[in-house]
């Protein structure tokens, strides 16, 4: 009378089946979520060995010749040693893995001592049972799975079934990883081809462009020499030739300006986009009434070389003006992946569809031949250097939109003043976001901040003048401060300082012409 026995054995069996089902689920999840084989394969051998309590498991993948199965993951020290040795077995060769991959069938040895094709591995001396399962995706063998036990007859029918299921999942995952790799390679190749094509096109365009600029110069010079040698020079022709020379030179200088531009700041820094938009609008000559700026809530700072980013925005604004836009709308908003989105939309003439991809190439322009066609390529170069992206959409007759994404910046710096120093600062700026940021931050650390151009009573210790002032031209402001005898306490701050302007301010006698601070640390550094 033992109807209830053998309960412990049944219980063990149920527990084992449960573990196997759980392992199968886990394998299913892992293969769906991990595309990196360097991560997936070791994980698989660990799951298998832990679930089945096997001595060893390993995954072989066929190499590119498809003649060898190369070990890519192996359990424990034996696995590490084998991989370090570059362990591989010939497909169709004298081993269980060789047989399984050659025949596309599982090979099971319940006693390896009696197995004809068993490969005696010196790193795995205790193997008594071994199973080799081919990994087949579609009709292609991609590799094989080996599992080994120190027990003879270690594999039950259920074990074989569940392991085969895991192997099938793994084969699909491996195939997917290969497909992704092939796609990435094809993409890279396409990119290289397109880049080469673009460079060739750009070089051809450059040669074409330079040739068209130098010919008028050389022929004009010849004519001028001839005229000078003549008794009766054609003065009207001389004047025209000089105009041709001047125009060619102007265009060559424009190329240099766009290709090199101002020397880059040392390193990108957190910056207030709205402020850069205003600075760019001022530089490009966009009337205030023409610009509409919308800033979404929680728009973070961007990480940028501010002088270069102002150049980019300036180029986009100039494009809009040249396209006869009557309105430019700029929208700033947070974007996924810790980025900031900038949309610059104009209602100008638009860009023909066939030109939309080409305008990013140097020397390609939709405007007249005296334009260098370098504004947008320069913008693309700068945005790429800032690890951002830019693209455009356009509807001829309706307008053009530029869409930029730039990395967000998070200011973790602190505003620390020297002990006992909390200067009185006069801020000469429009009532904008930056002025509010600076006033608040400086006030918190004990500085007295006043805004405006006039000061009553105590002379401020420092006067900060925003170069991109809308309410009054900066030259008038500086003249006023000079008359008040405080120019030597004045610092002109700019998002995009320019050599000629900085030199002029310094020559006038300002204390400093500095980069506009957008972080607490930079505010503190400016105070000194």
């Amino acid at each position, binding site marked *: 009378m033992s109807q209830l026995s053998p309960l412990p054995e049944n219980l063990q069996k149920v527990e084992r089946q449960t573990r196997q089902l759980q392992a199968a689920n886990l394998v299913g999840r892992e293969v769906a979520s991990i595309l990196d084989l360097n991560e997936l394969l070791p994980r698989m051998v660990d799951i298998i060995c832990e679930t089945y309590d096997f001595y060893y498991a390993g995954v072989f993948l066929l190499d590119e010749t498809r003649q060898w199965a190369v070990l890519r993951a192996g359990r424990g020290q034996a696995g590490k040693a084998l991989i370090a040795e570059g362990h591989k077995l010939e497909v169709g060769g004298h081993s269980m893995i060789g047989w399984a991959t050659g025949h596309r069938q599982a090979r099971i040895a319940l006693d390896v001592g009696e197995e004809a094709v068993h490969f005696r591995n010196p790193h795995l001396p205790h193997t008594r049972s071994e199973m080799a399962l081919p990994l087949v995706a579609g009709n292609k063998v991609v590799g094989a799975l080996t599992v080994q036990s120190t027990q003879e007859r270690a594999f039950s029918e259920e074990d074989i079934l569940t392991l085969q299921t895991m192997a099938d999942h793994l084969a699909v995952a491996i195939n997917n990883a290969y497909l992704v790799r092939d796609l990435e390679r094809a993409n890279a190749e396409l990119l290289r081809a397109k880049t080469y094509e673009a460079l060739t096109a750009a070089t051809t365009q450059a040669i074409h462009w330079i040739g068209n600029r130098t010919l008028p110069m050389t022929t004009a010079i010849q004519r001028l020499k001839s005229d000078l040698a003549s008794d009766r020079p054609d003065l009207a022709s001389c004047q025209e030739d000089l105009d041709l020379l001047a125009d060619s030179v102007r265009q060559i*200088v424009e190329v240099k300006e766009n290709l090199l531009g101002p020397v880059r700041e040392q390193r990108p820094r957190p910056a207030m986009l709205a402020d850069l938009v205003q600075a760019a609008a001022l530089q490009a000559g966009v009337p205030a009434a023409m610009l509409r700026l919308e800033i979404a809530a929680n728009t973070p700072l961007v990480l940028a070389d501010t002088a270069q980013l102002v150049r980019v925005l300036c180029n986009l604004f100039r494009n809009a003006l040249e396209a006869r836009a009557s309105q430019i709308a700029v929208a700033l908003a947070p974007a996924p992946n810790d980025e900031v989105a900038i949309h610059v939309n104009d209602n100008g003439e638009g860009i023909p569809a066939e030109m939309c991809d080409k305008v990013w190439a140097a020397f390609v322009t939709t405007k007249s031949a005296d334009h260098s066609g370098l504004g947008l390529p320069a913008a693309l170069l700068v945005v790429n250097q800032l690890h951002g992206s830019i693209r455009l959409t356009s509807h001829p007759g309706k307008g053009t939109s530029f869409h930029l994404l730039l990395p967000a910046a998070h200011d973790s710096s602190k505003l620390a003043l020297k002990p006992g120093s909390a200067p009185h600062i006069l801020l000469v700026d429009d009532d904008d976001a930056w002025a509010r940021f600076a006033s608040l931050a400086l006030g918190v650390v004990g500085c007295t901040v006043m805004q405006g151009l006039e000061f009553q009573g105590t002379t401020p210790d420092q006067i900060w003048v925003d170069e991109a002032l809308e309410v009054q031209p900066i030259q008038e402001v500086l003249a006023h401060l000079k008359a008040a005898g405080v120019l030597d306490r004045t610092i002109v701050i700019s998002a995009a300082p320019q050599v000629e302007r900085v030199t002029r301010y*310094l020559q006038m006698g300002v204390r400093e012409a500095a980069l506009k601070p957008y972080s607490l640390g930079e505010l503190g550094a400016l105070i000194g």
Partner: protein
Amino acid sequence: MTYRILIVDDEPMVARSMQKTLVRAGYAVQTAPSCGTGWAVFEVAKPAFDLVLLDLNMPDFEGTATPDAGFSLLDKVAAARPGLPVIILSAYDDVNKARQAIARGARGFCVKGREQSLLDQIHAILPGEAPQ
């Protein structure tokens, strides 16, 4: 009286072109192609120069082409003749270099290719009727 200007620039065409422009404007102009030669010419000049135009990127005092060699010459000129107007004329559009130049005593900083205002600056520094 004719104002005398020294141009130190290692690019012969740049030096010659600026010389032509300044001579037409009525100045007496000498050129030198490096810091070493420029300093030698500056030291012995009689009468002394009234203004110096300096390139930045040129051979230094050891004859090695160096990006900021002109600053070394600026320092020597400023030490020898404090207050003598010196204008830097550089190809590089670099705000930091402009700041450095002013801080080291230069009167101005011009970017080559945008030097159209240079003559006006010189006229403002060396005032008077167009010298003969």
